[in-house]
């Protein structure tokens, strides 16, 4: 097996056992990148020099017999809305085309401390707003399974580079499905952790009460390994977990699902769902029953209104979060102005793309005096109701199953002209963010047209252990351990 096909586990093991060096790994991945990146366009910035320097450092550690970190030598790609000290971080926006953060996000710091090797920053929808990565100001990423199709979004670059073997692991961010949907589209494992489990410090905010960083990986164990590395309390993020979680998922991941109670919300299988996806999910349900889980249908009626609540809350927070991009201190600044107001207005008009402007206007409107109660206030009430309904469901069930996306990866340009159509692709994922729950997207089949299909497993707050247990058991049954697209 070539190094670039290996999982994070296998790479670390190989390095620790001195079968190959961290330098060999970095070289192998960059060879792969030079070959395949022109076909995929998943990266916005590559950091070969920094990666080689880190590989040297790991080599010295191994040579000196010092303990190697949890992700020693594992090449990781980082979504370009997560700050990396000294490395350009653009949010795929013209606004931040030249922005170089003066600090590392907490997750990046933790990756580095675990001896992971950051190899580059990945493409995304501008400021994480979108479901196809077509909203990037710089390039369109292609789905490695079919280059005429989108990789999903907004973490499309991260999903595509893992799928194409150009990174062993990647970090994404998920505000309404931005890790899970691209993971499903590209046939990789994507996890949105419980809100607060992973620090957001250094994640350029979109919807602060919804945003969560999570890993995209080749299989379930890699996903768990990555989460173990980045999770836990951070004193720089007041919304991160109070208790210091040092949970290890590996000790229980192989325990199986015997006796596990699984709920299947019927609202997630309505008429809008692609038939092939529905069939594939049903096959998974049968598998779960075969291996000893108890599965039944449940109803969560309130989630049908989740999409509108989501778009109001996320846009409202975004309109505030993106106010700081005024051209004064960093980022894009118009050359053509006669007054302060003009400078700010023209810098924002020129720096932001269409979708970002649309959401800023939507959010500004929703928060305006006179409209607040009707929009933001009502959305918050709905959000509370949705959260309560999920909490109630988890009194009876360990996990819930659903599709990730109502549709298979669509063609580039197919939905770009219709924002509402695009928003509908988040219909199965947004409720999870509103409720702050953890959910995992894993490959569960391939369509007749050769496109990956994803299954969503939803857990109770801080129930990641259950997600991994169920996902790992299913992964073993499906024998789709690592799916490689033909590139």
């Amino acid at each position, binding site marked *: 097996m070539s190094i670039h096909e290996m999982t994070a586990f296998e790479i670390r093991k190989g390095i620790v056992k001195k079968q190959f060096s961290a330098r060999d790994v970095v070289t192998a991945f960059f060879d792969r990148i030079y070959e395949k990146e022109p076909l995929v366009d998943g990266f916005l910035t590559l950091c070969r020099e920094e990666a080689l320097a880190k590989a040297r450092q790991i080599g010295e550690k191994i040579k000196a017999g010092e303990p190697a970190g949890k992700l020693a030598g594992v090449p990781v790609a980082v979504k370009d809305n997560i700050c990396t000290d000294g490395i350009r971080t653009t949010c795929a926006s013209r606004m*931040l085309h030249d922005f170089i953060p003066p600090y590392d996000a907490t997750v990046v710091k933790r990756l580095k401390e675990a001896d992971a090797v950051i190899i580059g920053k990945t493409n995304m929808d501008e400021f994480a707003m979108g479901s196809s990565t077509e909203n990037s100001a710089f390039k369109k990423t292609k789905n490695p399974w079919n280059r005429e199709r989108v990789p999903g979004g907004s973490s499309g670059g991260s999903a595509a580079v893992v799928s194409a073997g150009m990174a062993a692991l990647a970090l994404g961010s998920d505000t309404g499905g931005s890790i899970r949907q691209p993971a499903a589209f590209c046939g990789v494992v994507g996890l949105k952790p419980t809100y607060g489990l992973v620090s957001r410090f250094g994640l350029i905010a979109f919807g602060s009460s919804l945003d969560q960083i999570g890993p995209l990986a080749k299989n379930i164990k890699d996903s768990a390994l990555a989460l173990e590395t980045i999770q836990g309390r951070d004193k720089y993020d007041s919304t991160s977990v109070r208790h210091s979680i040092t949970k290890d998922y590996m000790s229980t991941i192989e325990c199986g699902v015997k006796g596990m109670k699984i709920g299947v919300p019927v609202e997630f299988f309505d008429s809008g769902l692609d038939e092939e996806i529905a069939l594939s999910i049903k096959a998974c349900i049968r598998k779960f029953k075969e291996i000893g889980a108890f599965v039944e249908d449940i109803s969560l009626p309130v989630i049908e209104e989740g999409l509108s609540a989501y778009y109001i809350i996320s846009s409202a927070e975004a309109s505030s979060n993106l106010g700081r991009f005024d051209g004064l201190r960093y980022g894009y600044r118009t050359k053509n102005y006669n007054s302060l107001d003009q400078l700010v207005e023209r810098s924002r008009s020129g720096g932001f793309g269409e979708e970002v402007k649309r959401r800023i206007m939507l959010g500004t409107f929703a928060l305006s005096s006179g409209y607040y109660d009707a929009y933001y206030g009502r959305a918050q009430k709905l959000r509370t109701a949705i959260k309560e309904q999920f909490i109630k469901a988890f009194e009876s069930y360990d996990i819930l199953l659903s599709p990730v996306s109502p549709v298979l990866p669509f063609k580039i340009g197919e939905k770009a002209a219709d924002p509402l159509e695009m928003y509908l692709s988040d219909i199965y994922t947004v409720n999870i963010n509103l409720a702050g729950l953890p959910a995992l997207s894993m490959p569960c089949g391939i369509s007749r047209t050769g496109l990956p299909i994803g299954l969503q497993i939803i857990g109770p707050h801080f129930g990641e252990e259950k997600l991994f247990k169920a996902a790992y058991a299913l992964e073993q049954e499906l024998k789709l351990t690592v799916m490689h697209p033909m590139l």
Partner: protein
Amino acid sequence: MSFETIIGLEIHAELNTRSKLFCSCPAEFGAKPNENTCPICLGIPGTMPVLNEEAVILAVKTGLILNCEIAAESRMDRKNYFYPDLPKAYQTTQYDIPICRGGYVDIGAPEVSRRIRLNRIHLEEDAGKLIHLEDSGVSLIDYNRSGVPLIEIVTEPDLRSAGEAVAFLKALKSMLEYGGISDCHMEQGSLRCDANISLRRKGQNTLNTKVELKNLNSFKELQKALEYEEERQRELYTHREESKIMQETRRWDGEKGETVPMRSKEDANDYRYFPEPDLGPVIISDTLLREIKETLPEMPMARKKRFRELYGLRDKEIDIIVGDKALSEYFEALTACGTDPRSAANWILGSMMKLLKEKGLKTGQIPVPPEELHKLIKIIAEGRISITAGQEVFSEMFNTGRSAGDIVNKKGLSQISNRTELERIITDVLNDNPQSLLDYAAGKTQAAVFLMGRIMKASKGKANPQLAREMLEEKLRKGLL
């Protein structure tokens, strides 16, 4: 027609914390531009706030001092607007659930005390500062103040005159100083005041359109601005032109001595307040509240009472000394050394105040430690130098920081209390002024005063006046025999 003036104040005070509200940068005043900044208070993308506990405690302390109800759970909100001094494009503040509600401040002497009710106190962050370079048209931004913790204290419209507003602000300032809440340096902007003012006909119960006044940077400006605005509005009412009073913000122009329109209600921002998603609720547990209560220092009212009873000072003296935390502490330090309260008050209210004013120093910057002043007072009491000389020595101590004993010795200011030496001086003076002796003998007692003056002059002011007078009188009596 007679009118009633309705005034409400909004006071911003910078809290005495070591670090800023959301990061660990120093909150101090006077650093080089942008020296006290970090990615968090510069609003660099991706950064997040962490609430400073010390600031929360000081806000609660303020609430307790001002008799407010403390919210067990309050919330931080975002106030969104664009301005270059606001790096996140929103100010993190408190909107509908502030940390303190209600409360009051009593102003005036105990007999004619007036209770001014407070509406609320909330916690928020300060913004940076714009510096406009006159000639080049360039504006610079200093973010040192960005993120410095503030409390905003909002009164009810209970004040009825400019004088009352000033009295309230003085009382509040003194309480904030006593509580260790804020430096309250108005000239540095650590205590800032905006005023809302409207007029109504006597007997009317509803409130009329109010005008907000800004740029009131001292008690004097507050007084003048309110008086000007009161008169402006009164004129309009008198001429039945009250429709010209608009809900607007007016800036006090101290040089011109008038208020000028800044912005009208129509120009007002829609701040789009919403709960700050990056911070959890601000929770004050019963235990914390109890702990804070235990650390509350003595407040001015209590101290005034104590000073009256313990030291027997007069009300006017108490108002000045206790009205200023630093002065009252100096007074107590001085009496603790052994100086009697009367001379302590005299020295502080006399020479001390005069010198502070001359040097432009604040009461917290008295360069003479109380122990040193006590030594000086003792030297005078022992008759080693005269009071006049003592004042000269004090001025010298104030300017040079040298000790009293040192100055007295070096300047040769010690009084002549030696009988032999005085005897010689007096004899010389009497021999030189025989006519005065004759005058005295003729019953002109004025002659003694003249002779005393001669003695002081001959001794270059060093003769112990009391002793010299006794000896002179004795000699004159003998001379008559």
